[in-house]
């Protein structure tokens, strides 16, 4: 029997058991599984209850936790390890954010080496927001931390792909960083550098012009001398 279990928190929350999606999980149980998925270790019941139900009394928060656990079906309950004081996801549960974080940290490591298989899948993983429609304090904080991590990882990935001559993937990575934060100049600079490395000066200049127009329209500002210098030769051939 396929026992593979997976919890996904990138994009929407998803749970699958044995390769089959599990629908209709109560929201309290979804929040519990998502919270555990974002932790790599056991968490005390007190910490879970206080984080997931911060406005409730300790007694009510603990009751809500018990309710969330009890609403898991027998199959879903195999995903969690519950003791008197702690709760954790079972060790064999696959969690997408954990793999994505590992990838990001590997890219940002001082000795980062670009494996030949790092490409479209990595860009896809680093392009997705974490639970974008969830507004719990803990989820919002996790989402912001992930956003910062993936933005920097996408920058590095685009630069490394450029250095490897993989310009199409480099363009995708740089564009993903631009989409994530359209007014962040570093991402635009990297995108322009990808096009320049590829020898595509017209596209480099177009990318610069799009950024300049956006910056002007949104903030009434001009790009910095640093990014202007990248296309200076193109403007004045």
């Amino acid at each position, binding site marked *: 029997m396929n026992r593979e279990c997976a919890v996904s928190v990138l994009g929407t929350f998803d749970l699958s058991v044995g390769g089959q999606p599990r629908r209709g999980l109560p929201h309290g149980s979804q929040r519990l599984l998502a919270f555990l998925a974002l932790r790599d270790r056991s968490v005390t019941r007190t910490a879970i209850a206080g984080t997931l139900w911060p406005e409730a009394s300790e007694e009510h928060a603990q009751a809500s936790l018990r309710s969330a656990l009890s609403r898991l079906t027998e199959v879903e309950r195999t995903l969690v390890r519950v003791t008197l004081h702690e709760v954790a996801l079972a060790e064999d549960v696959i969690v997408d954010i954990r793999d994505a974080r590992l990838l990001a940290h590997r890219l940002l490591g001082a000795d980062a080496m670009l494996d030949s298989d790092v490409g479209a899948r990595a860009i896809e993983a680093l392009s997705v927001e974490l639970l974008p*429609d969830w*507004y719990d304090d803990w989820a*919002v904080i996790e989402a*912001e931390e992930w*956003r910062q991590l993936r933005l920097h990882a996408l920058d590095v990935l685009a630069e490394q792909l450029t250095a490897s001559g993989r310009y199409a993937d480099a363009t995708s990575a740089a564009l993903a960083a631009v989409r994530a*934060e359209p*007014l*962040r*100049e570093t991402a635009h600079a990297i995108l322009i550098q990808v096009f320049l490395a590829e020898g595509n000066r017209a596209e480099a200049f177009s990318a610069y012009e799009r950024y300049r127009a956006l910056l002007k329209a*949104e*903030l009434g*500002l*001009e790009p*910095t*001398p*640093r990014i202007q210098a990248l296309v200076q030769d193109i403007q004045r051939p």
Partner: protein
Amino acid sequence: MPLHRSGLLIIRAWLEPGSTRPLRAHLRMSSDVAAGFDREVTLANVEDVSSAVEDWLRNILAPSSPK
């Protein structure tokens, strides 16, 4: 109908060194998280950010659903 509503404001700020106004502050605002974020904006000076935060707080104080 909820007993009370909660607002949420996330400010992400960074600097663009070399810019005439280097501050960038991206604000995502919701005056009722049950309805999701209702406004996103990026601003480049402290006064504008302060003003946006004040407006958001006034929306929270408003007796009925804002917009």
